[in-house]
């Protein structure tokens, strides 16, 4: 029996290797996994792309009544989309699967999944009880022929309000747990990205879920609204609705003016601790970076003093430093300073057009947009400590306005690779790239809500 099983493992592994489109030779080390309480060791970032072969059959409806409100899609559809976007998995196609998921129910016939080439298996079942749905999310290690015990609430079925929104939220949580199990860091699903969607004459602020769906238009002025940012449940943006441009705050269904000093009031962004808003004001004659009170918009401190343009502040994760753009030496470059305006240091020396810094929430990497000698825009990172520059995008249209995911492993950005600008996602090496937005129109200046 034991020997039998080993042989099966070998066959299964071979099959999964054959089935995987992107598995590199060094997967020998990482794919020979076995299950431990801490999950598998998957060297995703250093090595090549080693994808975990995952089967996610359609959620099983345990009721006799049909699913009329999209419960199946909200549950297994969401998990499948999340794990696909996450870049860590290869999701097996239905045609590859030999197992009969609906028939076997929540007790997998491991041999069938094994022979389908799956290393992991996600099974979800649900039934409706009144206005609730009892959903059961399970992760199985096919190689270990056992269910993986996940933390609460996923250690058994859970009762959730029967709304697509609530079910999707829980499905995102489950996907985050699964990603955490395999990669030791939870996923980012369930978070939001705010951005601008432009048509010819208008630009409006939108919000979407980080899996690229549930797009909601927030402003409807049919004017120009720009540069959204969000923190601590406060959404700031820039608009011409009263001239300016001025900074506004949006919440509870209404917009309130936030900063309307003479000249520019652009790009307000809340500090991680919520105590200050960094913003560009040109009330002194040219654009300078200021800190404002997050509620009143009153000036707390002026941070820069130069004759040049100083703009696009981005907070470090500890709130102690601010990256920004300045053309004080002739061309726009990335700088950092302390949050009190001292300790200014120039970070970029290559190129003559570096803009839109965004500070990784978990490290000292700053992503930014640079224009190269062909006048093409691409995304780079610069290490605050070593000033080492890395290029992440190339030869795929213009790529601009990077924003880090809350876990610091991904960057969302705006790209014209398919024509009109859309929001794409990539990992911090740039190897993995995925189109995130799904709608029409130009998608600009994404800002990933991180706190």
């Amino acid at each position, binding site marked *: 029996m034991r020997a039998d099983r080993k042989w099966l493992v070998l066959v299964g592994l071979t099959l999964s290797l054959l089935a995987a489109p992107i598995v590199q030779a060094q997967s020998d080390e990482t794919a020979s996994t076995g299950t431990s309480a801490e999950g598998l060791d998957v060297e995703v970032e250093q090595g090549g792309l080693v994808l975990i072969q995952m089967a996610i059959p359609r959620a099983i409806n345990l009721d006799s009544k049909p699913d009329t409100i999209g419960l199946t899609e909200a549950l297994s559809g969401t998990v499948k989309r999340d794990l696909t976007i996450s870049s860590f998995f290869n999701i097996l196609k239905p045609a590859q699967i030999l197992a009969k998921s609906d028939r076997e129910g*929540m007790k997998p016939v491991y041999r069938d999944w094994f022979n389908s080439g799956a290393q992991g298996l996600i099974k979800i079942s649900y039934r409706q009880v009144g206005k609730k749905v*009892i959903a*059961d999310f399970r992760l199985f290690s096919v190689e270990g022929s056992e269910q993986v015990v996940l933390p*609460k*609430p996923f*250690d*058994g*079925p*859970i009762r*959730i309000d029967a709304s697509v929104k*609530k079910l999707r*939220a*829980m499905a*995102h949580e489950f996907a985050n747990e699964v990603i955490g199990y395999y990669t030791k860091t939870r996923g980012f699903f*369930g978070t*939001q990205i705010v951005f601008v969607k432009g048509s*010819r004459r208008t630009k409006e602020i939108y*919000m979407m879920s980080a899996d690229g769906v549930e797009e*909601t*238009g*927030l*402003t*409807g*002025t*049919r*004017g*120009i609204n*720009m540069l959204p940012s*969000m923190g601590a449940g406060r*959404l700031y943006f*820039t608009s*011409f*609705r*009263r001239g*300016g*441009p001025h900074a506004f705050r*949006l*919440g*509870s*269904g*209404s917009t309130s003016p936030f900063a309307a000093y003479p*000249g*520019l009031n*652009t*790009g307000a962004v809340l500090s991680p601790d919520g105590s200050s808003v960094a913003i*560009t004001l040109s009330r002194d004659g*040219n654009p300078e970076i200021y800190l404002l009170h997050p509620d009143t918009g009153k000036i707390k401190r002026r941070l820069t003093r130069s004759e040049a*343009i100083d*703009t*696009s502040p981005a907070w470090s994760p500890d709130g102690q430093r601010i990256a920004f*753009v300045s053309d004080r030496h002739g*061309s726009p470059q990335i700088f950092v300073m302390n949050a009190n305006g001292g300790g200014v240091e120039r970070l970029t020396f290559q190129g003559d*057009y570096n*803009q*839109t810094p965004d500070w990784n929430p978990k490290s000292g990497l700053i992503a930014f947009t640079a*224009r190269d000698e062909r006048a093409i*825009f691409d995304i780079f990172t610069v290490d605050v400590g070593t000033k080492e520059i890395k290029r992440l995008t190339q030869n795929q249209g213009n790529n601009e*306005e990077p924003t880090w995911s809350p876990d610091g492993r991904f960057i969302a950005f705006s790209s014209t690779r398919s024509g009109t600008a859309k929001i794409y996602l990539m990992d911090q090496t740039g190897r993995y790239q995925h189109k995130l937005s799904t709608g029409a129109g130009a998608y600009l*200046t994404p800002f990933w*809500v991180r706190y």
Partner: protein
Amino acid sequence: MLITQVRWILVVGLSLTLAACGGRPVEALSAAEKAMEDASLAKTCAPDEYLAAQKLLDKAKALAEEGEHARAKATAIAAEKLAKKAIAKAQARKDECLNPKTPDGIDAAEFVDQSGPGLDAVDGMSEGMQVIYFEYNQPTLSDEAKETLDANADWLLKNETVSVTVEGHCDERGSTEYNLALGEKRAKEARKYLLRRGVDKNRISLVSYGEERPADYGTDEAAHQRNRRAVFRADE
């Protein structure tokens, strides 16, 4: 594990011995049924154990029907045990199961602005004066731009009652925010020139539209050239 197995053998063995002397195991069966009734929460919160217990109970009943009283009793006892295990597990995760903490997501609906169209939605540009153009990423005035500004200044000096807003614009390349700053620089250069030509400073206001209001929606260099501009709008 070994101990449980031994225990299990003991239980079965004992039951067999007992059952050999008795008839239908009424007590064991009703105890198992009672346990299953108590396990209603487990049906939701520990379904694996619940279903397995249910299966055992069904089997015990079937065995009792067949007159296999000894095995029926042993199976019924096992069913009761498993049902109780299901109850314990369901109790332990009751809160998580019935009211799992929904993640504190952001509800987009709370941020939908209901205030309707803004003033800038009205597109009413009147151009009493001539437009000037700029080089890429430059706010400096070319000779041609200065000639146009001379003419605009003359017009303003003649039409003393008119106030003017100088709008700075950029092409679509570069970031939204930097271009707002650059557009302002362009508008300022133009205003500075008009002031030098003697136009009263109280008659000139500024606005930068950055790359937000292009004159030409094309994406080629010709369109970019037409968009890098300052526009002089006579205020009403």
